[in-house]
């Protein structure tokens, strides 16, 4: 970046340069950022602004808050809001517990192939979420492994497992899909834990649960919080998993946006739900970023 170094070289008060002008060449630094920011503004910010505008523009014409009051009165919206929040919170809790246990074993009770397993988890992250729901259909669906086992064993015509179309199915799928997002930062944090510290604790007679509680958990807390924050936002935004369960009675804010806009053609209503959804996710994501900046910011500053 030509501009930036030239500018830095010219910065600062200099009293006695003998009247020689500081030569600045090329484009000043901030200008280089203009093209990508402008592009993003056009295809991301401008459309978002139009969504907000549309939420105040009922189909009847003019501008009013009618779409908002309408949407807020609908039972379906309130259910979707509640579903979104509790499923996301529950999934996050599940991911944290599961991810902590699994990462703990990979990091501290190593077994052959453990490295390969963490690679597998990386691959897992590259696949779309709805594949999990698709797989769960074959495992717990009305025709599927679990019910098949039951019918094979008992001779009954149908199995007892039927929760996929309920919010619990969504919860299970989200816990499965998002757990790796918790494990990754945790594994990174665990690799920083000094093994000498663990050995010292063990030599002092501390048993494993105590070591986990008093040595490992405090060390992992920041990454646990960061991973949890990210998963919470991703769960709030999750669409594919909910769509693929095909449950009409399980709607969340994203699926409500979809059904209002595409199925009902109610754009102002969809925009209202969208604004609520964005406000919820972005504020939580802001908190998450602040948290991450707090935990890693010091190190990054020192490195700069």
């Amino acid at each position, binding site marked *: 970046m030509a501009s930036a170094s030239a500018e830095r070289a010219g910065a600062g008060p200099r009293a006695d340069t003998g009247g020689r002008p500081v030569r600045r060449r090329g484009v000043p630094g901030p200008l280089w950022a203009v093209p*990508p920011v402008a592009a993003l503004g056009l295809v991301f910010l401008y459309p978002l602004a139009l969504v907000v505008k549309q939420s105040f523009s009922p189909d009847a014409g003019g501008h009013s808050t009618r779409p908002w009051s309408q949407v807020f009165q609908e039972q379906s919206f309130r259910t979707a809001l509640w579903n979104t929040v509790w499923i996301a919170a529950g999934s996050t809790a599940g991911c944290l517990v599961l991810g902590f246990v699994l990462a703990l074993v990979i990091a501290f*009770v190593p077994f052959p192939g453990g490295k390969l397993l963490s690679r597998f988890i990386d691959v897992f992250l*590259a696949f779309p979420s709805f*594949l999990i729901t*698709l797989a769960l259909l074959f495992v717990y669906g009305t025709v599927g492994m679990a019910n*098949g086992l039951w019918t*094979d064993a008992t001779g009954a015509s149908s199995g007892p497992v039927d929760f996929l179309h309920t919010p619990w199915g969504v919860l299970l799928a989200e816990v499965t899909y998002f757990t790796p997002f918790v494990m990754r930062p945790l594994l990174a944090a665990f690799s920083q834990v000094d093994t000498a510290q663990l050995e010292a604790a*063990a030599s002092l007679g501390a048993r494993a649960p105590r070591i986990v509680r008093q040595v490992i958990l405090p060390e992992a807390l920041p990454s646990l919080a960061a991973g949890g924050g990210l998963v919470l936002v991703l769960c709030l935004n999750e669409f594919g998993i909910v769509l693929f369960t095909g449950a009409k009675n399980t709607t969340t804010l994203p699926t409500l946006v979809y059904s209002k806009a595409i199925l009902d053609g109610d754009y102002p209503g969809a925009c209202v739900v969208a604004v609520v959804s964005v406000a919820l996710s972005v504020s939580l994501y802001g908190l998450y970023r602040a948290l991450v900046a707090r935990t890693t910011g010091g190190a990054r500053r020192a490195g700069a």
Partner: protein
Amino acid sequence: MLVHSRAGRIAAWVVFFVLFLPLFALPFLVIVMASFATNWSGAFPSHPTFAHYRAVGGGDSLHALTTSLLTALCASVLALLVGGWAALAAEKLRGGTRKVIDALFVLPVAVPSVVVGLSLLVAFSQPPFLLNGTAKIVILAHTVLVTAFAYQSVGAALARLDPAYEQSAASLGARPAYVLWRVRLPLLLPSLTAAAGLCFALSMGELSATMMLYPPDWMPLPVQIYGATNRGSLFEGAALAVVLMVSTLLVLLVMGRVRTRATYR
């Protein structure tokens, strides 16, 4: 080592695999098995067949695959260009401007993809930009969604890049553009290909925004999979899902190969 007794270690591993296998390994196994089956009423699927894959070989499904590949290619190239450029420009900035650009380029991660789709639908169905019903709007949506990841991975790679390289080059008389081209980009190449691979994979699996936007003649693979399962053709959906996974993995693998070759050059 945390657990010192052999029994304790084995217990920990048992807990691990009891949790890990059904949750993470089983789903993929199940999808692969189902893609070869015509019926699943017992514990295991029955009546093995290749019919679903033969169906993928022609017609809509193949079209969906090429659509997905093309979309992902365009989106990841565009995202790398915009996100990489932004990351390079932001690196030299300090203070408020830097924070604003950082926030701006990670925002698409926080906004639900469905809303990104909706917003593009709202914005580009009206003048001055009429893109609704074209392939462009799908590619645009994918680009918006994956640019954030490109920005973050390039930014992280830049932060890791030792400034001594850049400074040595400058001390040897190389202008910033020359340093960028001959030193920084080659050193960033592994990170750039990794970022491209990530963007490609994300775009291949994108469903939410696509569902809001796709025109009938530009139907990517995930939409096709949803269509199949929605009309009850679960086994065909499974076959398509396997195709999706395999093609994503292949691209990631190729990108990984590029990466290792670059590091050993």
